[in-house]
């Protein structure tokens, strides 16, 4: 017991230097080195992880990290050298196997080593910027094993050989291939690329170059494409099984270049099996395949499109200039529609509705339809035929389909104003003869034209319909007020046409038969009574009449004739024979019309209610006409009237052309004035361009005509040339 003062504890440093056993590092390293040996010799089970870890830890702690690290490098390197040798020693097919096995083992070993050396990995290595253990292990593998000369070249050769074998149909070990390529990828993307991929692509290019040459000599286009497609799919599958995904686009590129791009032109032009043949024979599957394959190479689709386009243009051009075809306008237009349908189908089913192909098709049609100046007339005749009889009994939807197709052709026309002229003529005939199949169909087409071209285009056409309706109302009113007067007399039905709306007719005044003059006057008075300030003139070249005729043996027939024909026939109530001159004198029908009229009455089998002397085919001024007593027909009602709209004769066509040209002049002038009013000053080329733009929805103006109109406007002092710059024109307000 002590009550003495407690002495403070003093801690002093060791007085002597504490030194780690110099042999400590060496000893510890040896332990670890031994462990690595054991690991590589598959004796890891006997090792204590904890102990080894501690040893490594201590080494690093006591500043022997450097020794540890370099020791690791040396040891691992020497082991890998051994491994290299053993791999190299493997024969033939076993090479790859051995390589793969050793690789797997190395990875396992590396993992264990890394775990043991984890402390170093996390402290010493980052501090000294050395390569981490795992990475180090991969690098060493790469440098010592893979890039060992003997192994490197052999590896490459075997891999490529396997691919070649597989391409020629042999079965190879894909799993093994996968492991090897995965190994290469793990070693770094440049390893995979430089050691394998680069050569793979080169060799593949050679392979396909050769193969494509063989195929193209021995196969037709369709077969070749099938093969090419097959190879392409094969490569894609190969990549998915044992190559890096990034190789896919590269190898497919190779196949496409060698098999498709190099032989593009030859394939397309191949005789009897190339693109044109496929189109003509409608081989949709082959075409679709071609489209898909060619899409992948630059200018592949351009090639297809160009060849197709020039073929369409040639076909169209042929159709447009074949005189046989042009004899029947309705048939001709039908052919055009069929042609369009065919190509539409090809583009939808084989070419994936590719817009550039659609555009090429459209421009081709536009090109050749306008090669023939008669196209507008023919399209109108086609419509006329449809609206007269073609669409009889057809459902509303189908009617719309046909009309839409017509509109499609209409859009291609450059001379829309010519179409308008003919359409008007034909429509007038249809309306007046009551021959239209469906009023709804007529109106539907007008609406479509209006949507396409604007109100102005159709306003006159609509005027025609209005006149028809109004005339109906007028007739009702007339009959209501005069019905009782008529009694036994002829029945009159009048259509009153507003001059501006209907196609212009040359003015003819023929003499109407006395029998109907009465009722005609009554109508005239009635109408003018309710519409003051108007002038009516009978259009004798446009009407029809139903005549009751009794022939020699008492046979009665009802003859449906034109007004002219009525004028002629009525004469025979008072005379049995009349000369041409007499008829001409009394009726005052214009010569060409009269001749046509007499021809239809005397020279057509089954309709010859008149006889002609002499019996020649043509009408001469010296002919005589007799009432044909002996006329028979099995029908009670006989139609002798004028036929439906015909394609114009050459001279008629010229005349219409001329009228169209005349109509265009004021339109061009109006456009010029409009433009100059807005711009005030403009140079010649720009005026031409603007005018063309403004009028293009109706027709394509001729630059020479535009110049002439400008000069005319200068003369009339609407414009003047600029005093300074001769190229400019000025608007004179």
């Amino acid at each position, binding site marked *: 017991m002590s009550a003495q003062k407690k002495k403070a504890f003093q801690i002093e440093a060791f007085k002597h230097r504490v030194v780690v056993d110099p042999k400590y590092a060496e000893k510890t390293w040896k332990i670890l080195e031994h462990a690595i040996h054991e690991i590589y010799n598959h004796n890891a089970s006997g090792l204590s992880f904890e102990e080894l870890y501690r040893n490594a830890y201590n080494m690093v702690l006591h500043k022997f990290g450097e020794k540890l690290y370099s020791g690791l490098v040396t040891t691992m390197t020497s082991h890998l050298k051994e491994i290299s040798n053993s791999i190299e020693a493997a024969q033939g097919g076993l090479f790859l196997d051995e390589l793969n096995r050793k690789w797997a083992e190395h990875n396992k070993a590396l993992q264990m080593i890394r775990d043991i050396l984890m402390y170093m990995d996390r402290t010493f290595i980052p501090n000294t910027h050395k390569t981490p253990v795992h990475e180090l292990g991969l690098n060493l593998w790469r440098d010592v094993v893979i890039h060992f000369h003997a192994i490197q070249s052999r590896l490459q050769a075997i891999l490529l050989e396997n691919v070649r074998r597989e391409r020629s149909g042999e079965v190879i070990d894909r799993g093994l291939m996968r492991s090897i390529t995965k190994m290469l990828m793990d070693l770094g993307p440049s390893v995979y690329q430089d050691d394998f991929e680069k050569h793979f692509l080169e060799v593949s290019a050679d392979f396909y170059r050769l193969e494509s040459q063989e195929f193209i000599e021995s196969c037709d286009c369709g077969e070749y494409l099938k093969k090419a497609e097959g190879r392409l799919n094969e490569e894609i599958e190969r990549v998915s099984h044992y190559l890096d995904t990034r190789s896919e686009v590269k190898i497919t590129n190779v196949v496409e270049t060698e098999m498709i791009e190099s032989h593009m032109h030859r394939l397309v032009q191949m005789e009897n099996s190339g693109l044109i043949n496929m189109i003509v024979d409608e081989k949709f599957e082959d075409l679709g395949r071609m489209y898909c394959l060619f899409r992948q190479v630059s200018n592949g689709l351009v090639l297809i499109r160009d060849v197709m386009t020039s073929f369409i243009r040639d076909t169209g051009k042929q159709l447009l200039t074949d005189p046989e075809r042009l004899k029947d306008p309705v048939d001709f237009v039908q052919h055009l529609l069929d042609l369009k349908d065919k190509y539409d189908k090809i583009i939808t089913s084989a070419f994936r509705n590719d817009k550039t192909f659609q555009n090429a098709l459209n421009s081709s049609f536009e090109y050749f339809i306008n090669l023939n100046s008669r196209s507008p007339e023919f399209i109108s005749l086609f419509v006329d035929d449809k609206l007269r009889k073609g669409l009889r009994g057809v459902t509303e939807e189908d009617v719309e389909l046909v009309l839409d197709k017509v509109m499609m052709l209409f859009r291609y026309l450059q001379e829309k104003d010519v179409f308008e002229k003919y359409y008007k003529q034909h429509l007038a005939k249809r309306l007046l003869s009551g021959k239209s199949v469906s009023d709804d169909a007529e109106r539907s087409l007008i609406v479509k034209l209006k949507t396409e071209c604007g109100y102005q285009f159709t306003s006159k056409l609509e005027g025609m319909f209005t006149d028809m309706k109004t005339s109906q109302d007028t007739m009702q009113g007339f009959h209501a007020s005069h019905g009782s007067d008529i009694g036994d007399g002829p029945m009159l039905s009048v259509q009153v046409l507003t001059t501006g709306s209907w196609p212009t007719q040359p003015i003819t005044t023929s003499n109407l038969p006395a029998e109907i003059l009465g009722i005609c006057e009554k109508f005239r008075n009635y109408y003018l009574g309710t519409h003051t300030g108007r002038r009516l003139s009978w259009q004798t070249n446009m009407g029809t009449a139903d005549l009751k005729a009794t022939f020699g043996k008492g046979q009665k027939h009802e003859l449906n004739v034109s007004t002219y024909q009525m004028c002629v026939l009525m004469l025979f109530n008072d005379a049995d024979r009349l000369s041409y001159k007499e008829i001409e004198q009394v009726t005052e029908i214009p010569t060409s019309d009269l001749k046509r009229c007499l021809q239809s009455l005397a020279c057509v089998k089954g309709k010859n209610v008149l006889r002609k002397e002499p019996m020649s085919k043509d009408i001469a001024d010296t002919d005589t006409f007799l009432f044909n007593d002996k006329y028979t027909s099995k029908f009670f009602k006989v139609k002798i009237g004028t036929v439906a709209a015909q394609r114009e004769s050459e001279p008629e066509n010229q005349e219409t052309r001329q009228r169209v040209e005349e109509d265009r002049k004021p339109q061009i002038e109006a456009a010029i004035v409009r433009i100059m009013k807005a711009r005030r000053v403009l140079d010649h080329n720009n005026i031409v361009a603007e005018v063309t733009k403004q009028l293009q929805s109706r027709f394509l103006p001729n630059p*020479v005509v535009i110049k*002439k109109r400008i*000069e005319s406007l*200068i*003369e009339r002092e609407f414009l003047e040339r600029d005093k300074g710059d*001769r190229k400019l024109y000025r608007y004179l307000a």
Partner: protein
Amino acid sequence: MPPRASKRKSAPPNSSSVTSSDGRSEGIEALCSDLGVDYTDVRILMLAWKLKAEKQGYFTQDEWQTGLKALGVDSLSKLKKALSDLEKEVEKPSNYEDFYTYAFRYCLTEEKQKSVDIESICELLNLVLGVQFRPQIDSLIEYLKVQNDYKVINSDQWINFLRFCKEISFPDLENYDATQAWPLILDNYVEWMREKHS
């Protein structure tokens, strides 16, 4: 085309031989012979231009007096000299176009007349441009006589004839561009020329 009849009442001194009560053509012919100049000579036309004569074939009293005063002429000999000076004056670029346009207007004899017949145009071209642009004018006149698109020429076409001679290289016509604002008659002329030479 040069003035034929003259209605002037008073004459410059020493030209009394020219006066005549009804102003007949002998007067002008006499004037011309006094001047030593043929009355179809272009210088008479130039005189008309200088005098700003409104109507072809007439000098009004006003025009005559004012014009001669402007020329500083009060005798026949001075008039003679003035004529040769006049030629130089007209040829000045600033006056030439004015004279050229005047020549056309001078031929419009009727009220509201806007064009001149081809025959007269050919003569006028020869007179006015013949000296300076002999080959072009000869060729153009040949064309005007054979073509039948146009029976008369208007002032717009007339003025462009001069521009054509001045600007277009002849006879190759290389720099002529039909898509430019040349009158159609010249487009046709150039086409005719090119066909002739091909």
